[in-house]
């Protein structure tokens, strides 16, 4: 359960978000702005709990459709809008598991609350957004390599460049992302290996 903050403790971001949510409740066309803000967060949250990319896309789609359909029911009581979205995501993941009547690739049951791993989700969502800030050629290579899972050869053919040039762009893109990511990050990044081990053991830090 996410703690509810009294009005006096609301951050400026929460105030802005509240105004935006209220605007979307009055005019659903404004929901597009909420989508732009929260897409990466919801996607990263689901991807951390569900392994299959098609399933992640189905569930992300489900979450935003449910959120749009139920937007009028959201009441601002100090709970951030993102927590409401992630609660919908948890329910969507559970519904899917029930429909399939078997264990889907959900990390493990203790993960099906919002809080565990939330910082990692936020970091990953921020990294996804940083990809859009890369120089165009690096961005193309990173998107094709990681989101579309293409080989270096396929990317080279698609972009009309040599394989060596693509590997160089991949290197520069990752280097750029690391620099931008680390600059904004306050805490030192955790070791991925230990995070994975923690996830597998049902740890709370994710």
């Amino acid at each position, binding site marked *: 359960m996410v703690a509810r903050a009294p009005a006096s403790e609301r951050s400026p971001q929460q105030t802005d978000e509240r105004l935006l949510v209220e605007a979307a*409740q*009055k*005019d*659903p*066309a404004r*929901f*597009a702005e909420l*989508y*732009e803000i929260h*897409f*990466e967060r919801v*996607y*990263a949250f689901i*991807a*951390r709990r569900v392994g299959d*990319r098609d399933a*992640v*896309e189905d569930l*992300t*789609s489900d979450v*935003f*459709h449910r959120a*749009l*359909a139920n*937007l*009028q029911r959201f009441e601002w009581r100090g709970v951030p809008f993102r927590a409401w979205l992630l609660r919908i995501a948890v329910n969507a993941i559970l519904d899917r598991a029930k429909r399939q009547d078997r264990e889907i690739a959900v990390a493990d049951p203790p993960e099906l609350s919002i809080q565990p791993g939330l910082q990692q989700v936020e*970091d*990953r969502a921020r*990294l*996804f957004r940083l*990809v859009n800030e890369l120089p*165009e050629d690096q961005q193309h290579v*990173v*998107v094709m*390599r*990681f*989101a*579309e*899972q293409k080989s*270096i050869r396929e990317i080279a053919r698609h972009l009309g460049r040599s394989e*060596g040039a693509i*590997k*160089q762009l*991949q*290197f520069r893109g*990752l*280097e750029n*992302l*690391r620099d931008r*990511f680390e600059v904004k990050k306050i805490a030192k*990044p955790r*070791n*991925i*290996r230990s995070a*994975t081990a923690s996830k597998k053991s049902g740890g709370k830090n994710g």
Partner: protein
Amino acid sequence: MVKRSRFDELDQAVSGILLHPDAPLPADARLAPLARIAAELTTLPRPDFRARLKSELQRGISMAPSSESMQREATEEETKPAVDPIPQGYHSVTPYIVAADADGLIEFLKNTFGAEEKFRAVGSAGGRHADLRIEDSALMVGGGGAGLAWKGAPIPNAFHIYVRDCDAVYQRALQQGATSIAAPVDQPYGERSASVKDAAGNHWYIATYKGPNYKWEGAPTIQPYMHPLRADPVIAFLKHAFRAQELGRHASPDGVVHHLMLKIGDSFLEMGEAHGPYQPMPAMYYLYVPDCDAVYRQALSAGATSLSEPADQPYGDRNAGVKDPFGNQWYIATHIKDVAPDKNQ
């Protein structure tokens, strides 16, 4: 032995991460920070998924209730006009096709797409006027033909039409005299589609959505499809004149707009900048709005020229005509009273 470059070394690490995301990361101090970033990126969302979901949501937004609309429903009962400004069976935008052989086109629409004829008459100018429905979408057809006095220029249009079986409808269109522009093919955006040109010059982009239904959730059966030389000036006009909303676009890095979705009132229009056989086709539209006079003035201020000033019509609409800077004709109408159909108006 040839020393491998750091680009090759990193790529080898990336290939391993993509293949086994949970495998240990390389210990090499130079590569480890980049490999960590690569491991985080293994779930990077596909941009086309992000854009497609946004587009789907924007279609859904038009159906979502707003708190203001719910409040309005409660208070508007007393001030409600005698009739709905958009008559039953119509949406905001109805394409109006003008054909040299209007009756021939009506037969084509019936035999190819199962169009239902709602009304057919001879208008005051001596030409044909007919109202048709294809599932949830209305079409108006006018023009000349055997025994009709009307002589004028045809005004064809282009349409994206959803059907249950793209291949069968494509074959039927050819049997009904259409010529093929493109045979049925599976498209990367999740539709099977084909294109034909009918004898009156209209383009029909026949599509079956490869999903749970044969069309996207919320999609109308027919959407007019514009092919302007450049999309942005047309959109700017439509936004200013008719408060059109752009719902999403797919453009190449050099700025060419390949596909764009617009909404005017409750109606969707599509657009793709002219290329190959898809050249500008200035068309005619009948546009229902709550206040014909106000929208007429707004259209003129956006750069349209007047074809006719607002006037009450014997068929129960008040309407006015304008031509936009791109040659499209818009008949802006408000339904003001229900009138029994007269076959000679």
